[in-house]
């Protein structure tokens, strides 16, 4: 069940995660967010971009404390918590934001 992005058909898995990470482009996040009735703001993009940078270095999404700490440093302490992240990504920063960022879904007991 591929998704349509800028006229290209991209393969996603059963849960809507991009099958091939290299096919990601910002429009992928826009298309996925639109399908879930979410409008991406600069605040969302801060998170998505951080996830992508971290993934490039470590081959995994950041742990929640790594993420909140980085957000706190960059955007101010009041935003460095998971409550802020859940406000942005109601399905959970780990899963929803990873999906938009083209990362694989975090698996396990999370």
């Amino acid at each position, binding site marked *: 069940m591929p998704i349509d992005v800028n006229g290209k058909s991209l393969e996603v898995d059963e849960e809507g995660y991009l099958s091939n990470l290299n096919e990601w482009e910002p429009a992928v996040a826009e298309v996925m967010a639109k399908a879930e009735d979410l409008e991406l703001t600069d605040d969302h993009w801060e998170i998505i971009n951080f996830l992508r940078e971290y993934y490039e270095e*470590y081959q995994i999404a950041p*742990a929640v*404390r790594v993420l909140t700490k980085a957000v706190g440093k960059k955007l101010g302490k009041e935003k460095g918590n998971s409550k802020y992240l859940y406000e942005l990504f109601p399905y959970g920063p780990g899963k929803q934001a990873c999906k938009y960022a083209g990362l694989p879904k975090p698996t*396990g007991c999370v």
Partner: protein
Amino acid sequence: MAEYEIPETHEFPVIPTVMEGVMSHSAPFLAKAQFQEPLGFPGDAGLVDGWKEMFIEELGNMLKKYRSLQVFMDICVKCGACTDKCHYFLGTGDANNMPVARQDLLRKVYRRYFTLPGKYFPKLVGAVDLTEEVVNEMYSYYHQCSECRRCSVFCPYGIDTAEVTMAARDILAKIGMGQKYSNEIIGKVFKIGNNLGLPEPALVDTMEGLEEEVEEDTGIKVRYPVDEKGADILLVTPSADFFAEPHVDGLIGYGKVFHAAGVSWTVSSKASEAANFGLFIGNYENMREISLRIREAAKELGVKRIIFGECGHAWRVAYNFLNTLAGPWDFLDPNYPVPQHILEFTSDCIDKGILKLDPSENDWMTLTFHDSCNIARASRIGDYPGSQFEIPRKVIKAVCNNFHDMADETIHDRTFCCGGGGGLLTDDLMELRLKGALPRMEALKNVIEDKGVTHMAAICAICKSQFTKVLPYYGMTMDQIVSVHQLVSNAIILDGQDDDEAENAETDEAA
């Protein structure tokens, strides 16, 4: 939040009207070849050629290998004691979720091919032919059992439903119908070392972050070491402890306890996972291979002891089988149990007066405790009957002033599963998870209303993640679930951590 029909909670449990097939649509994603192969299973998200003969042969092998399974297939007298004991039945009302009915999905095939009356007079004894429809029904309903064994507590013959589910899942995986969630995870353990797929550099980065965090909060350098050779203790903990909330607050707590006790410890990047999903899929070979990683890590690091973090089924595997799966452990210090649970360690420290504790740090909460099924019914923490119920409560009460238990029929060995155990903690089973959480949510709501409880503590990564997800659907908030060692972490006062610093940390948090 996605839309689901959430069952109503009541002041007293209500047994639902039995309905046929209302959950027959529920089934997790099948594992594609890429997730089957690393585990030694055939197929690509569907039945393989010759599946029928393979099914019968495999069932035959299992009946010979596991005498318990043979007994469970023969001994049920349909007394009905189990029918209303399953959280998935209570939450869904589906007839096949009465444990006896779910077991019968395998039993009726067993009768057809392995009993004389079933071979000659199938209709008289409820035996059925093995068809694709029968197999699909099994795939659906054997993934509506969390292997929690609550029904077994009430069975006069002690039939272990979990074992029947495990056998069925193992057979299904071997004919091409493995479950994506569990199998993908086991593949990651083999490849990377943990369920998450957290590689060593990310693990080190995460643990360094925790060191910084604890130092900021307390002013004390508490170490969170990775792969440190010569450490006394190897901590084996669920990888969710590195990754998720509230799990990570528990991990912070383990580190503080070790620090206060003055012992050296480490986690291993090779065995950076306590969980053993080999148990969930009922496959011995995979369970063993996962366990052996712990042995290799313990040898390589030269540790003297092994301690497990807060993880329910991991402790079941470790407590019951670690010696047969990955022993002998004669290279470890014989003065300590192999393995040991983190709660045993902390409880000992409390008994010996090693920890300086200020329970008033947790005064803003009133706690209750959720017994994890695999610890309550399948293992023990401590060394006397029932100590697995008492030790967690003892530790909580040592670090919290306000505690109330939930209703008697929902705790200790009669505890309800969180609704996400046994390899079902996956988004493709969200409807089942939400409905299966009903009995626990009901008991929690009642103790919130009657006793003013504000938070529920748990000692299992699955329970913690499941409750984080389902609490909002039942009108509560995700942060009402906490780790037991998170409570310890809040209350512990480390040497050199003067009160000023503690107060500063508090004001910081409030700000």
